[in-house]
Structures are given as structure tokens and as C-alpha cells.
């Protein structure tokens, strides 16, 4: 795990291998402050944004933007209404959507006068294997988003649905379809 943070609390027995326990500890003690919550959920936010944007540099920028928003809105965070992880993912989703809207506006403006710049292409980092990286590139952002929340961050359907602003059953349906598409892309390559 990276460097730079010295968690002020919840250190004993908490490692990256047990993120759920760490999250529980943090969400149960909101008074521990913004710093410890940022440390605990930085990877979650980054991974989520990496899946949504499929671009590491954009995910970097949006992660920073998410935590800046979180710092500004820290006083509105109420742990009784949801965990810090859920709150940060909601903020991250808002930041990503704002980014996509701005990108769409920029492209429309450019289309009027010149050949549009395609912007940042989907360039997933090298940590992904070639099969998975190629398969994820072909999925839509909505598919990658639900996979990130349910599979990578291991959120339950209710929490993921809350972040996506849809019902839990709709969330499950969306996940199943996304996974079907992912498997369709992955299976032939694995067989080959």
C-alpha cells in the first residue's frame, strides 16, 4: 500500500487485506476526522473512478476532485445515513458525471469548428492482464461502474443501488448484464 498517510486511528490490526473491517471501524467513529477516512477509502475511490473512466490520469484527477469536494462538504456527512465509503463513492460519481458532461460540451463545441479531439482514450493501466484489459475497454462506463461497485469494492446490492441512484433489483439486473457482456468478451480469448 502506498505511503504518505499516517492513519490517526484504527491502525491496530487493520490492513489493506481487510478493507471491510477498516471501513467498519472508520464509519463507526466519524469523529476520527476527514484525514483517516480519506486514507481508508482512497483506494476505493480511485478504483471506482478507474473503472468508470477507464483512464488512469482522469481517475487521478477525479479522485483529487472527489476529496476536495469531500473536504468542502465534510460538515454535511452524516454517518447515520450511510458509511463514509458510500458517501465518497457518491461524490466520486458526481465528479465523474460532471467530467463527462464537460467533455461532451467540449466535444460539441469543437465539432462545430474542427475535427473533434477524441479526448483521453480508454487506456487501462498495465496492472490488468491483456485479456481483462481488452474486455473492459469494450464495456460501457455504466457496465464498468456496476462491476466496480459490486465486484471490486464488494458492496452489497442496496449500497451500490444507493450510489447509482436506482433500485437494488435494477442494480442486480444491470450487474448481471454487465457480467454477461464481460464474460462474452473474456471467454473466447481465454479459450484461444
Amino acid at each position, binding site marked *: *500500500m*502506498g*505511503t*504518505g*498517510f499516517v492513519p490517526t486511528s484504527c491502525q491496530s490490526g487493520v490492513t*489493506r487485506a481487510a478493507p471491510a473491517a477498516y471501513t467498519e471501524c472508520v464509519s463507526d467513529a466519524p469523529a476520527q*476526522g*476527514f*484525514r483517516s477516512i*480519506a*486514507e481508508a477509502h*482512497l*483506494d476505493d475511490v*480511485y*478504483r471506482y473512478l*478507474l*473503472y*468508470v*473512466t*477507464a483512464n*488512469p490520469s482522469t481517475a*487521478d484527477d477525479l*479522485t*483529487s476532485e472527489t*476529496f*476536495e469536494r469531500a*473536504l*468542502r*462538504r*465534510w*460538515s*454535511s456527512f452524516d454517518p447515520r445515513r450511510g458509511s463514509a465509503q458510500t458517501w465518497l463513492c457518491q461524490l466520486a460519481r458526481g465528479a465523474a*458525471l460532471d467530467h*463527462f*458532461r464537460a467533455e*461532451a460540451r467540449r466535444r460539441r463545441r469543437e465539432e462545430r469548428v474542427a475535427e473533434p479531439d477524441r479526448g483521453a482514450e480508454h487506456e487501462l*493501466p498495465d*496492472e*490488468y*492482464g491483456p485479456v*481483462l484489459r481488452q474486455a473492459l475497454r469494450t464495456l*460501457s*462506463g*455504466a457496465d464498468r*461502474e456496476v*462491476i*466496480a461497485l459490486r*465486484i*471490486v469494492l*464488494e458492496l452489497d446490492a442496496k449500497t451500490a443501488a444507493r450510489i447509482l*441512484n*436506482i433500485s437494488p433489483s435494477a442494480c442486480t439486473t444491470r450487474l448481471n448484464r454487465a*457480467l454477461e457482456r*464481460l*464474460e462474452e468478451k*473474456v471467454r473466447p480469448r481465454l479459450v484461444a
Partner: protein
Amino acid sequence: MSPDLSNALRAETPTAPDALRHRIALIASEPPTPRRVLPLRRVLMVAAPAAAAASLVAAVAVGVKAGVEHQPSREAVANELAPKAPSGGLPIPRSAVRTVAPDAFAPAVAAPARKRAQDVRTSITLLVDDTDDLSATTQRALRITRSLGGYVQTVNFGSETAEGTAALQVRIPVSRVQAAVVRFSGLGRILAQQTQITDLQQRLDELTRQIRRAGDPRIRAALRRERIELHRRAAYATLSLDLTTHEPQQQAAPPSRIDRAVNDATGVLTGELAVIAYALIVASPFLVLLAAAYAGRRAYRRYSDLRLLERA
């Protein structure tokens, strides 16, 4: 989904790079923005009970104040309980009407002035035992009238199986009206009594002066006829005697101070609720439109978000 794919997704997804970690550490080292405004929900949670409590306190205050201010005086109670003037009668000068409270009912009539012409009208309501007694009492009243030198103007007698009423209007010489009231009062239990005395002397004196001044014999004759009529009115008192077998229901006791306060407070609260209901009725179409616009905007936003992510 195969477990291998799940594991691969989790294992191959990278964590945040160190540069980003440092950047976030810098952001997190800043003090969080303090809360500047109260959230709407918290404001409502305080404001709604406060408004309800304020309206309740206002209602109680109004009720207590009104309860103290509306405490009726003894005179007002007596006026309320006093018999009303007969319908169609002359307007009654306040000073000329003698009202007797029910608990002090006794045969009494103001003595007419001997040297002035006056129009004396008295009404008495008496309770008798039953219809047999009603008939006998009516007969006795007629005899008393004649014995006092008076005469009967109208008699209205009616009885059913258990209940009955009789209304007599008699004229008694003014000089004997007090005796008449006393004797009539002995015929039953007095429920109500009222005496009205109107001075006629002033009009008589005026007529006398006009007759002296009048040159035309026809006008003088007309004035004389009017003066004679006034003398007749002044010579006899009109006495209305109402006999009934129906005992009037006991008047409800005036509400206590606490009852009045509670009633007034309830009235204020009802008024407040009516205002709120009225406001809601007036505002409801706009609220429905606002809610529909809000729901539509949310749905559109959700749809556009999904489209954005699908294109991403």
C-alpha cells in the same frame, strides 16, 4: 460469473499511485470547511414543533385573556334572564322598564303618578299546575278584572292533553293597577313580569295649547278627539296576563372561566387549522406541479447520467 473472473477483477485492479496518495494527503491536511448554514431538514425538525408550540401558546393566551374579559356582570346576567318586551309593542324607554330577576320575583308594579297622564302597560307570566287549574285560573282572572272595574280586551285559551296556555289582555283603571297585579300574581307562580310606563302628559298639554290656538273648528275638533283618546289611554292600564302549564327549562349555567378559556383556545386552534387547510388547498395544485417537475427532473437526470456513462 466464474470465481476466477471475480478474483481477477479484484486482483488486477491497481491501487492509487503514490503521487495521488501524496496529493490527497495534502488535501486532507487542510481543515474541513465548517458548517455555515443549518440543513433544511434540521431547521424543519426544530421549526415545525416550535411553530406548533407557538400556535398552542397563542391559543391558550387568547383563551385565557378572553375568558377573563368576557366574565359577565350581575347586571348582564339579569338582563339576559329578564323577559323580553312583547313583540309589536312600543319602544320601551330603558328608565321606564322595571325588570325583576327570577329569583326575586314578587308581585310588584311601579306606582303610576296620580297627577300626570300615563300609559301603563304591564305583562305577567304565571305558571299554573295543569290544564284544569289553567281553566279555573283564567276564570278567576276574568272575575278579578271585573271586580276591579276593568274589562277584558282579548282572551286566548288553548289546552292539549297535558299542556295548555292562556293569554288575557285586560284593561284596569290606572288607580287600581297595583292591586290588580298583586291579585293576579296570587293566581300562580310568577315566571316573568314587566311594566312599562310612558308619559302622556306632555302630549296632552301640547294638544291643549294647540286647541286654544287653532282657529279652524275642524282642526280644533280633531285635536279634541285626540286629547280624549289620550285621556282614555291614561285612564286604564293595559295588563297582559299569560298563563302556562309548561314550566320553562332551567337556563343553562353560564360557562365557567376555564370552560370559556378552553372554548376560546379551541376556537383559535380551529381557526389556525382552517387557515392551514385553506393554504394547503390553494397551494396544492402548485405543490403537485412542483413535485411533478421535481420527479421529472430527477428521472431525466438519471436517464442522462446513464447515457453519459454508456457513452464513456
